[in-house]
C-alpha cells in the first residue's frame, strides 16, 4: 500500500527521496494556508514565489477583520496600516466577510470609515462594525459616517449580514440599504442607533422579505413592524432581539398590541424573542400586561416583585430568565408561579434577590431536569427552618439530577 501511495505522489519526491515541498499542488497549499493565522501565512509566503502566489489567491482574502486601535486608548494591537493598504490595493474585490473592531478613539472610527469608503469594488456579504469600548462611531460627524457606509450598501448589492449597533445610521441610509440589498438581507443588528425612526426600520421589514434576525431598541418596535415581519411574503423570523433602555427616569414607553405578537407567533412559531430590560423600577407599566411571546428575558437593573409576578402570568414561551437584582423581599410565590406557567423554562439566573430555601427547592422540584442552567448567587438563598445554607445544595442537586452549587463571591 505504501508503495502505491509513493507511486501516486512520486513527483513530490526529489532524487534523494526527500519530500519536495515546492511540488505541493496549489489546492493543497491553499487548504493548509486557510488554516494558518495571518501572520504564519505571511511568513510562509516569503518562502518562495509559488507560495507567495498562493498567499495572494482570492480564496484567502474572503474574510478579514480590521482591528483599529490607538495606543492611547486600547491595550490591543491594531492591524498594521501597510497591511491595510495592501489589502485595499490587491484584495478589495475579493473581500466578502468583513468586520471592523474599533476602540474608543475617534481616530479608529475614522480609519474604519476611510477603509469603508475605499471598498468600491467589493461585493460584501457580511459587514460588522463593532465598538470594543466606548461607541466611537457615534463621535463622528454623521454625514461622514453615512457616506462611507453607503459606499458599501450601493456597491455590495448582496449584503446578507449587517451589524451596525451603536452607529449614527439613519432612515435615508437604511433606504439605500434596502434599495440595493433587499433580496439578500438576512441579518440586521442595529441596537442603539438613535437616528433611526420606527418608519425607517419599517421600510426594511417591508422590503427585505428574507430577514431572519433583527436586533433593535424598543422605541423602534411597532405593531406595524411586527405585522410586516409576519406578512405572507416574509420568511419565518428566527430571532428578534429587543433592548428596552431608559433614557430618563419616568420615561413613558408605548405598548405593543397582543394581536401583533400573536401574528408573529402564528407566522413564525419557532421564533425566539430576546428582551433585555434596563429600566427604573417604576417604568415597567406597559410591560407584561398581556401575553408576550418572549423566550429569553434579562432584567439588567432592579425589577420589582410585582413585575416578576406578572412575568409568570404572561410569558408562557419563556426559556431563560435572568434577574440582576430585585430588592429584599422574597420571590417565593413569583418563582413558583413561573415554574408552573413557564413550562419551557430551562435557564434561570438570580443576582441580588432573595428566595427562601424551601421555596427554591420547591421551584427546582417543579422544573426538574429541564433546568440546564441554574445560576443563583449564594446570598439569594435565605435559610429557613427546613434548610440551612450548608445543605440546600444537596436538595437541589437531588432534584436536578446533577451536582449543583450556588455561585459564590469572594469574601474580599
Amino acid at each position, binding site marked *: 500500500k*505504501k508503495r502505491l501511495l509513493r507511486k501516486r505522489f512520486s513527483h513530490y*519526491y526529489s532524487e534523494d527521496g*526527500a*519530500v519536495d515541498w515546492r511540488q505541493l499542488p496549489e489546492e493543497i497549499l491553499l487548504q*493548509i494556508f*486557510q*488554516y494558518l*493565522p495571518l*501572520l*504564519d501565512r505571511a511568513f510562509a509566503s516569503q518562502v518562495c514565489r509559488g507560495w507567495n502566489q498562493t498567499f495572494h489567491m482570492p480564496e484567502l482574502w474572503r*474574510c*478579514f*477583520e480590521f482591528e483599529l486601535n490607538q495606543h*492611547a*486608548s*486600547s*491595550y490591543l*494591537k491594531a492591524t498594521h496600516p501597510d497591511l491595510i493598504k495592501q489589502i485595499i490595493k490587491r484584495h478589495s474585490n475579493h473581500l466578502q*466577510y468583513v*468586520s471592523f*473592531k474599533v*476602540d*474608543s478613539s475617534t481616530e479608529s472610527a475614522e480609519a474604519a470609515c476611510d477603509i469603508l469608503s475605499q471598498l468600491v469594488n467589493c461585493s460584501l*456579504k*457580511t459587514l460588522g462594525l463593532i465598538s*470594543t*469600548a*466606548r*461607541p466611537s462611531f457615534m463621535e463622528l460627524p454623521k454625514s461622514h459616517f453615512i457616506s462611507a457606509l453607503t459606499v458599501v450598501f450601493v456597491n455590495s448589492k448582496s449584503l446578507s*449580514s449587517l451589524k451596525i449597533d*451603536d452607529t449614527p445610521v439613519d432612515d435615508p441610509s437604511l433606504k439605500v440599504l434596502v434599495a440595493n440589498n433587499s433580496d439578500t438581507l438576512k*441579518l440586521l443588528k442595529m441596537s442603539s442607533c438613535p437616528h433611526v425612526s420606527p418608519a425607517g426600520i419599517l421600510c426594511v421589514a417591508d422590503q427585505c422579505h428574507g430577514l431572519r434576525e433583527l436586533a433593535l431598541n424598543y422605541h423602534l418596535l411597532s405593531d406595524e413592524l411586527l405585522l410586516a415581519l409576519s406578512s405572507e411574503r416574509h420568511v419565518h423570523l428566527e430571532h428578534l432581539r429587543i433592548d428596552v433602555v*431608559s*433614557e430618563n427616569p419616568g420615561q413613558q414607553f408605548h405598548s405593543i398590541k397582543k394581536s401583533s405578537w400573536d401574528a408573529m407567533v402564528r407566522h413564525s412559531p419557532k421564533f425566539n424573542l430576546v428582551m433585555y430590560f*434596563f429600566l427604573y423600577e417604576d417604568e415597567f407599566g406597559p410591560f407584561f400586561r398581556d401575553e408576550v411571546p418572549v423566550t*429569553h428575558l*434579562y432584567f*439588567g*437593573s*432592579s425589577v420589582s416583585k410585582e413585575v416578576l409576578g406578572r412575568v409568570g402570568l404572561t410569558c408562557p414561551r419563556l426559556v*431563560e430568565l435572568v434577574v*440582576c*437584582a430585585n430588592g*429584599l423581599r422574597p420571590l417565593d410565590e413569583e418563582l413558583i408561579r413561573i415554574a408552573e406557567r413557564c413550562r419551557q423554562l430551562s435557564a*434561570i*439566573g438570580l*443576582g*441580588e434577590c432573595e428566595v427562601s430555601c424551601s421555596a427554591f427547592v420547591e421551584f427546582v422540584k417543579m422544573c426538574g431536569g429541564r433546568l*440546564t*442552567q441554574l*445560576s443563583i448567587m449564594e*446570598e439569594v438563598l435565605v*435559610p429557613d427552618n427546613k434548610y440551612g*445554607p450548608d445543605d440546600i445544595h444537596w436538595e437541589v442537586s437531588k432534584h436536578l439530577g446533577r451536582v449543583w*452549587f450556588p*455561585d*459564590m*463571591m469572594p*469574601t*474580599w
Partner: protein
Amino acid sequence: MNGKCDSVNMAPNSIHWFRKGLRLHDNPALQEAVRGADTVRCVYFLDPWFAGSSNLGVNRWRFLLQCLDDLDSNLRKLNSRLFVIRGQPANVFPRLFKEWKISRLTFEYDSEPFGKERDAAIKKLAMEAGVEVIVKISHTLYNLDKIIELNGGQPPLTYKRFQTLISRMDPPEMPVETLSNTIMGSCVTPVSEDHGDKYGVPSLEELGFDIEGLPSAVWPGGETEALTRIERHLERKAWVANFERPRMNANSLLASPTGLSPYLRFGCLSCHLFYFKLTDLYRKVKKTSTPPLSLYGQLLWREFFYTAATNNPRFDKMEGNPICVRIPWDKNPEALAKWAEAKTGFPWIDAIMTQLRQEGWIHHLARHAVACFLTRGDLWISWEEGHEGVFEELLLDADWSVNAGSWMWLSCSSFFQQFFHCYCPVGFGRRTDPNGDFIRRYLPILRGFPAKYIYDPWNAPDSVQAAAKCIIGVHYPKPMVNHAEASRLNIERMKQIYQQLSRYRGLGLLASVPSTHNGNGNGMAYSPGEQQSGTNTPGEFHFFFSLYLKLQTNKAYQLFYFLKCFKKG
C-alpha cells in the same frame, strides 16, 4: 545545609527576617531562629526609604510602622529589639552575615512569585556565606504546593474545587507557642547603645510623609491590637445568632473594631490561630465536632487566591496571564481619575472611595460595587488599573494575590464567573443603607439631601437641591455615565467575548460562560489566555475571534504530519 560554625562555640548566631508574619505568636520560623542559638536578631528591611514622597498609601505605611513599633516593644519585653534596616536584602545581607557572624537565617515562607524569586536569590547568597536557611510555612493554612499537587499540578480555579481538595487534606497545623523568655532560653540579642539611631523604627515624617492634619488611624497596626481584636471578634460571633451569615446592613459598611483583614495581611494575626480559635468556639457553642467549611470563609478565600497565584508571576496582569480573559478594556485616564478620586457623581461609589482613601478599609460588598463600576459595570476600564494604582496603595489588607484575584473575579476576567449580575451604583447602595447615612458621613456636601434622592441627587428637583445647599453640577459632579446605557453596552460586550470563548452559538446569557460541572478547573472548556488578536474572520451570522482559527491551526499541523509520513513510507 550546615552552618559554618566556630569550632569552639557550636551555637549559631541567627537572623530572623520579618517580611510579613509580624508577630511573636505562632511564628515557627522565629522559633527556629532562637532554638539552640547564641544570639538572635530580628530584622526588617525598609525600602524605599522615601515612600512618603508621593504621600500615597500613608495609611498603609502608618499601619506597617505601627506593626514594627509593636514588634519592637514586645521584643523589648524579652530583652531583645527589632532591627529596622535601610536597603535591599540582597545588598545588605552579605554585610550582616559577616558583621554579626551569622550562621542561621530564618523566615516565613512567602508563596507569592516575586517573593519566591527574591528568597531564592537570598538562599543562594546565604549558601555562599555558609549560612543555614530555615523556612517555615505559617502565612497560609496549608502547604499550597500540596494543594496544587493534589489537583494534578494546576491550582484549582473554582472555589468549590478548592474546598473539595482541602477537605481531603490533613487539617491545618496548630499554632505554635508565642515566643517567651522560656523559649528564648539562653539566646540573647546584642543591643548597642545607639540602636535607636541605627536600627530604630522610623516615623512617618522620617519617611517623608506630611502628617499635618492626618486623622488618627481607624485601624491601629500591630500584633497586640490584632490579638485584642480576635477575642472581640469571637465574642461577637458567638453572640450573633450561632454563626449564621451576618445580614448586611448599614452598620456593616463602617470599620468594625472586630475587623481582622489588615492584621491577617501583615501577619500580625496568625491565620492558624484564627482557624483554631474559630473551630474551638464553634465546638463549644454548637456542641458538635465538625464545623462546616463556610465557617472559615474569610480564611479560605484568602488561601484560594494565594494558591491560584503562587505559580503565576503574571497573576496581576491580563496579558500573558494564562487564566485571564483578554477583554478589550478602554484606556481612559480621566475616567479612572474620577473613580479613584471619588468624583464619579454617584454618591454610593464616591462615598466608598472616600472611606477607602481616608481609612484604608471598605466592606467587601463595597469593594464589589466599586470594582464592578470601574470594569464590567460602567466604565469598562481595566481591572489592572484598579488593582495597581489604587487598591494596592490605599487598601490596608490588599496583598498581591488576594487583591489581583479578587479584581479578576469581580471584573469577570477569570474563574468562570457569570457576568449578568451587575451592581447598580444607585440601587445597590440604596438597598444596603436606605437612609443614606453612609453617604452623609463620607460626603458631607450631600448631607442636606433626603433619603429619597441621596443616591441619585441629579434626579432631585431644583428646589430640593437648593434646600440641600448643593447644586448638582456645581457643588457635586453630575453622574459621569448613564448607567442604563453603559450596562446595556457592557453586557453585550461581555456576552460576545464569552460566547467566542465557549464557542456557544445560542441565545442564552447564562450558557455563554463555559461551565465546569465538576468544578475542577482542569480540562477547562476554554483557554482564556490563548486568545489571539483576530486577523481573519469567517463571515457567518455571528462574528468570531480567532479561537476558531486556533482550532484550525491544529488541523494544519495534522496535515503536515500526514504529508511527512510519506517520507517514512
